[in-house]
């Protein structure tokens, strides 16, 4: 079973890569990623560029509508994510707990649909 662990940035953490605190976060995330790989939980992970870089497209009508900015304006935004393999939610929550500590941000855990579309 795969879970999406979204990293939620609420503006409380630094973003300047020269900041030693940010460098410590990055090192902690690297170590956490190594652990995910070593223990067989790794599927994929990455960070996202800021919400100001987002573009929204709606092509359900006659012509595509392009909007500058994220689909929802909010103080909190998704700053990155992990996709992990875990047998159940307890394991996923334990990974997310370690992930939150490593990246120094809140995270949200959601199951991905399985191959047979099982919810």
């Amino acid at each position: 079973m795969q879970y999406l662990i979204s990293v939620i940035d609420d503006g409380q953490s630094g973003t300047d890569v020269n900041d030693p605190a940010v460098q410590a976060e990055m090192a902690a995330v690297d170590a956490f990623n190594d652990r995910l790989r070593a223990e067989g939980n790794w599927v994929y992970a990455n960070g996202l560029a800021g919400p100001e870089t987002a573009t929204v497209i709606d092509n359900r009508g006659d012509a595509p509508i392009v909007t500058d900015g994220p689909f929802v304006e909010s103080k909190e935004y998704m700053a990155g994510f992990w996709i992990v393999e875990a047998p159940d939610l307890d394991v996923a929550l334990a990974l997310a707990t370690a992930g939150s500590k490593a990246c120094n941000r809140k995270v949200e855990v959601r199951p991905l649909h399985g191959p047979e579309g099982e919810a």
Partner: protein
Amino acid sequence: MIDVRAAIVRAHHDEWARVVAALARRFGDLDIAEDAAAEAFATAVERWPVEGVPRNPGAWLTTTASRKAIDRLRRENQRGEKQMQAQMLADDASDPYTIDDDRLRLIFTCCHPALAMETRVALTLRLVGGLTVPEIARAFLVQESTMGQRISRAKAKIRAARIPYRVPSADDLPLRVSGVLAVLFLIYNEGYLPTGADSDPLRPGLTAEAIRLARLIHALLPEEGEAAGLLALMLLTEARREARVSPKGELVSLAEQDRRVWDAAFVAEGHALVRERLASGKAPGRYQILAAIGAVHTSARTFRETDWSQVVALYDQLVRLDPSPVVALNRAIAVGELDGPQVALALVEPLGDALAGYHAYHATRADLLRRLGWTEAARAAYAAAIGLAGNTAETAYLARRRDELG
């Protein structure tokens, strides 16, 4: 006929959780387990009066429920026969080091921290307690459809997010047990001091259910001191239930209660549990300390004979564990009995900022001011308490006290 009905009620009482829990493990789905258990009991209602009560009602109900579940899976035909077989066996291998009782798995799943508190309460009452959705909805003053949705959504989340059906590992156990106890305590309190303008002052059904569930947890986890503590606390509180509300529907304070009405069996059982915990020599948690305070109260023949220094000493212990303003308030009430209202008031006043919205803060202040003879200040404090109190019996009590100020 009456015997058969009694047998069905007893079987529901004794076997519901076991049937649901066994089916949940076998079929890996709470929805299927719940529906099949309900169908099995409905079948018992039809057939037992005709065919007689089976020798082993639990086994009969589990077998019947399993057949109903298999029928449903075949009917839905969403899964092939092979897959269904696999699913039925998937969770059969139980860890040898965990406590092997399906009901415990069921309780931990219903009280999983990934579910909202109100959802945990509803699921526990439905799946472990066997209360119907309308019963639970009534107990918490919400629409039946709302409660039904809450339970359905929870089951859907458990399935979709794969909340596991197992007893947590030894590392997680203490935290998860305290989560379960919090659910039971909340159920008890909602029965003991229901809120809502027109609510009954007591809901004995809910307190009885909480005690039944606490007994179950204590029996399944006999080594958990806090489970014993919570059961003792509930018993010692429940013992005073009849004396707590007057025939006029007014709350009766501990000082004014007729102690002859207290339930001696509950008191004795509660005291035995408290003694057992003391004898264990292990540091007590919050519920054990509260139970010990209840034991001191229920040991006194009259209010005046209460060993208040012992009560204050126990609150001192509780403050070290939980330095919250509510605990400080309750400690101050005990100090008031030991050292007088003036000393207590000095402890209560600094809590005003934190507890301004809590009716018990104002009620406590009102009582202390009344005893000090500061009538006008007391009247204002009673008014504030009445404005915030959610329980009808408590409001009636506070109003009488205020009116008696003259």
